[in-house]
């Protein structure tokens, strides 16, 4: 048996790319890491494994807690973590969803080729930067009152459709058609709504960005065609979440859990794992509030996408319809969803498998349902759900499709990005924003514009894991199959 020793934690190799920490102490289930040895080496450098082991203490953890190949240390639950918690006798954990509820990525196609954009990158990046709010205090695309916030929370992208920020087709290419059932705006605090009000249609800062990209490779012609992707095509990737509204919602519920479910909290090794017992009023309230915040994030990305269409219209002097700027798909990578999965019965070692309703927590992980799954939108049901994996500014991104093995191995999930390798402080010591920007432009013809040079340094390509290696693991395990690769053309960030 091959083992990997990571500073006192022993991982046994179950099969290629699957490593397992056996339950010890208060762990309710094993903890699994899906990684190559090179990625495991990186994952074992910080507190990722400790946080993953801690996550298995959550009541109702089913089969195992999983760390994706791009996993890294977060707070409480690791980033790149998947945990399926029983929806009947388990719990739901705001900390295992993360602060940025429905942080996610969407990709919009165009029928432009790289040749048509070449030479106009600076004009394009300047216009995008001027028209898409980013950074701290940059406002939002729409000026709205609290009534609009309520509507957005309840109805999601349907609100955008009614108000001229979307077309019908956009809804059909978004998970849940852009409207989460069970959203309850009354469970979102006034404070959260006040924060969200100024930020509807804004990127924020940190690792969030908007990037114009060109498709460099299509690995699977049939699926590529179904996704409408071909080589040299220009696409737009948008990465952001639910802004202050989501962050506040997470903290509001962490504090409520601390006050109302102290008993459960005391059993957990990290306060940030705070969870509400399934069936409790607070679990219901959080689920309603989180679903509302999910809608808010979808509207946020929708407004940015629709604004991007207008920018392209001005720069290329054609209508967006003529440029066929259509939404390919929108994926969430910080979310918990009630889903039914076939699982092993809780921890008794028997082989009995049964269907259970679970709160599947994906924190820095993406749903990756295979073809035929009823929850994959009709447009893609014959090939599998599109999965968008953003890479760093210099490395490009991937489009995958949900793989056949995902339901058995990962509760229908795969990775969400390259995953950080280097701390922000170290990044700022090692890189200078201006240099990174200039190098990307000179050597890679990538045009970057950001509110702050520090953000560019902190997000420099060298601070991320190798996205190729992450995607290789996903592809070879069959949880998310490679469809296409893209490379940045221009990028704006906060």
């Amino acid at each position: 048996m091959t083992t990997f020793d990571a500073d006192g934690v022993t991982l046994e190799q179950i099969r290629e790319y699957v490593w397992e920490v056996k339950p010890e102490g208060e762990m309710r289930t094993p903890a699994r890491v899906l990684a190559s040895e090179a990625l495991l080496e990186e994952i074992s450098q910080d507190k990722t494994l400790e946080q993953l082991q801690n996550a298995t203490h959550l009541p109702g953890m089913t089969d195992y807690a999983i760390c994706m190949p791009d996993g890294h240390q977060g707070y409480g639950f690791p980033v790149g973590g998947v945990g399926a918690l029983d929806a009947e006798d388990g719990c739901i954990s705001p900390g295992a969803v993360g602060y940025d509820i429905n942080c996610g990525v969407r990709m919009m196609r165009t029928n432009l080729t790289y040749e048509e954009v070449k030479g106009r990158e600076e004009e394009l990046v300047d216009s995008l930067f001027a028209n898409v709010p980013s950074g701290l205090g940059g406002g939002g695309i729409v000026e709205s009152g609290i009534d609009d916030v309520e509507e957005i929370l309840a109805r999601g992208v349907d609100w955008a459709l009614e108000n001229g920020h979307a077309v019908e087709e956009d809804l059909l290419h978004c998970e849940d058609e852009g409207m989460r059932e069970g959203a309850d705006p009354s469970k979102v605090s006034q404070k959260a709504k006040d924060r969200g009000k100024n930020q509807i249609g804004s990127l924020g800062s940190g690792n969030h960005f908007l990037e114009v990209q060109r498709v460099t490779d299509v690995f699977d012609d049939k699926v590529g065609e179904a996704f409408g992707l071909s080589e040299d095509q220009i696409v737009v990737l948008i990465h952001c979440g639910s802004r202050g509204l989501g962050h506040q919602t997470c903290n509001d519920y962490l504090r409520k859990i601390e006050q109302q479910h102290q008993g459960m909290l005391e059993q957990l090794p990290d306060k940030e794992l705070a969870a509400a017992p399934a069936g409790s009023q607070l679990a219901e309230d959080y689920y309603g509030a989180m679903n509302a915040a999910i809608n808010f994030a979808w509207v946020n990305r929708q407004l940015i996408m629709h604004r991007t269409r207008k920018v392209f219209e001005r720069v290329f002097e054609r209508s967006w319809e003529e440029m066929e700027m259509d939404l390919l798909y929108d994926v969430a990578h910080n979310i918990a969803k009630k889903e039914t999965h076939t699982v092993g019965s809780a921890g008794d070692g028997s082989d009995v498998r049964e269907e259970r309703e679970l709160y599947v927590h994906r924190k820095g992980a993406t749903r990756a349902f295979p073809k035929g799954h009823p929850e994959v939108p009709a447009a893609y049901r014959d090939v599998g759900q599109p999965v968008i994996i953003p890479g760093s500014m210099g490395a490009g991104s991937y489009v995958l499709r949900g793989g056949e093995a995902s339901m058995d191995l990962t509760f229908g999930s795969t990775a969400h990005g390259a995953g950080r390798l280097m701390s922000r402080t170290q990044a700022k010591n090692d890189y200078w924003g201006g240099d990174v920007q200039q190098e990307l432009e000179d050597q890679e013809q990538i045009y970057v514009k950001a509110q702050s040079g520090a953000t560019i340094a902190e997000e420099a390509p060298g601070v991320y894991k190798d996205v190729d290696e992450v995607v290789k693991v996903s592809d070879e395990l069959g949880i998310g199959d490679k469809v296409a690769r893209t490379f940045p053309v221009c990028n704006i960030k906060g």
Partner: protein
Amino acid sequence: MGFELREHTADIAVGATGDSLESVFGAVADGLAAASTEDIPQTGGDRFSLTVSAENLEALLFDYIDELIYLRDVRLELPVDNRVEKLEIAELGESRTKDDSADETAYSIEATARGVPLSEITAREIKAVTYSEMRLEETDDGWEAYVVFDV
């Protein structure tokens, strides 16, 4: 006495010290400002005040930073030069032992900050304060705190 920003893979942590609870709380809040921008203007912006109460000391620190982030987003100002004017522990008087249980709202602070308009600075967004690895401990010299912010 003061704060320093510490290494963290994805986020930013602040380590702070103070000779009193008031000063260590203020130092963590100044850490939030420093994590948001490298160039805090020496002048400009008006001071505003806030009050926060919670059921224990750690929760009070959490809620204080959470409130500053909330106020940042709704006032569109970055709170800098933070001062905790008064920290009150209603039930426990002077003993200030955080492990003792106390009723809700037993712990409260009155604080002020100078709100620098976000339009005048280039700042990045700290999403939230977290409980992850949070420490607030009494030492021979006063108090020490460690707080991770989500970026």
